[in-house]
């Protein structure tokens, strides 16, 4: 086999490995609504949002000047952001059978609505919404957050 072909194959295998580690992690929720410039930075790629796009722990949700996006997580937590927002789901653990529960969200900028789901119902202290300087502890509830530099 020609050397270049072999190295191409190695490159393909390497690429498959790096992307599959991400793709093999289970979805934690899905995009449901979007308008304007709305993206998900996932596993080193930037994806345009569409309804049904799978979200995974660590994904960054971003919107532009005219953008907005809504998502629902598997425990029925509902979040939606307005324009110029950046939101990260830093931690997601939803295995109620094993008692493993946790949700950590960080809003870096923009506006967001948060409606708590099953994790907050089962273990309220395990749910945190963080901003640059503050932390919001959730006790089964719906609220709005705005973060501006």
């Amino acid at each position, binding site marked *: 086999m020609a050397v270049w072909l072999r190295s191409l194959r190695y490159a393909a295998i390497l690429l498959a490995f790096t992307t599959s580690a991400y793709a093999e992690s289970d979805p934690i929720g*899905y*995009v*449901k*609504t*979007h*308008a304007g410039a709305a993206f998900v930075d996932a596993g080193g790629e930037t994806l345009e949002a*569409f*309804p*049904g*796009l799978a979200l995974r722990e660590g994904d960054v949700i971003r919107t532009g000047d005219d953008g*907005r*996006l*809504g*998502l*629902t997580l*598997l425990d*029925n937590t*509902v979040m*939606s*952001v*307005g*324009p110029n*927002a950046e939101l990260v789901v830093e931690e997601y653990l939803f295995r109620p059978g094993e008692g493993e529960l946790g949700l950590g969200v960080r809003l870096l900028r*923009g*506006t*967001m*609505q948060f*409606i*708590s789901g099953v994790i907050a119902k089962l273990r309220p202290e395990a749910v945190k919404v963080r*901003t*640059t*300087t*503050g*932390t*919001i*502890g*959730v*006790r*089964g*509830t*719906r*609220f*709005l*957050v*705005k*973060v*501006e*530099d």
Partner: protein
Amino acid sequence: MAQRSGMHGGNLLLAALVAGLAVSACAPKSWVVLLPNEDGSTGRIIVSGPEGQAEVAEAGTAASLDTAVPETFDVSRGEIDTTFGDALQAQPSPPAVFRLYFELGGTQLTPESAALLQDVLNEVGARPGADLSIVGHTDTAGAAADNEALGLERAHFVRDRIIAAGLKLDRISTESHGEGNLLVPTADDVSEPRNRRVEIVVR
């Protein structure tokens, strides 16, 4: 979709101006405001800054997120709509929950539930990018291991009916709770129609 007030443009502008005046003295740039839940109740949030905490338990009460100790203040409906209109408009429909009931010992839906299955399909069809979780349950009649298997058969039966209507398989999760998660608590070996069910969450 979020319910929006039917205010006229002029009133909205006035409300925004009044709200702007009310908070302009010490308006924080980053803040959180509590809203009532869909069911009319209101929860609680605990806001922490580097040097202190504040608890908010009333809808319309806000807390600053860029002060050492969070400071609480009131926010008008007008200012909420002005600031958060887009985030509110992007809100997905709240998850919908359905229960389908089965005849004794199999995957035969009761006549009422067979009719309700169409509502489930309609709900899925009305939600772009819908995902579902389907959990099968049994009553306590028979052996626990058999009921574990029967719960899964019921969940799969419902899943197959939904797939036949055209939803992508990778957004449906199925599992069985067997006789371990009774809707109506009973002793072992009790035939209870309300426990023979599949619970479906359409998100």
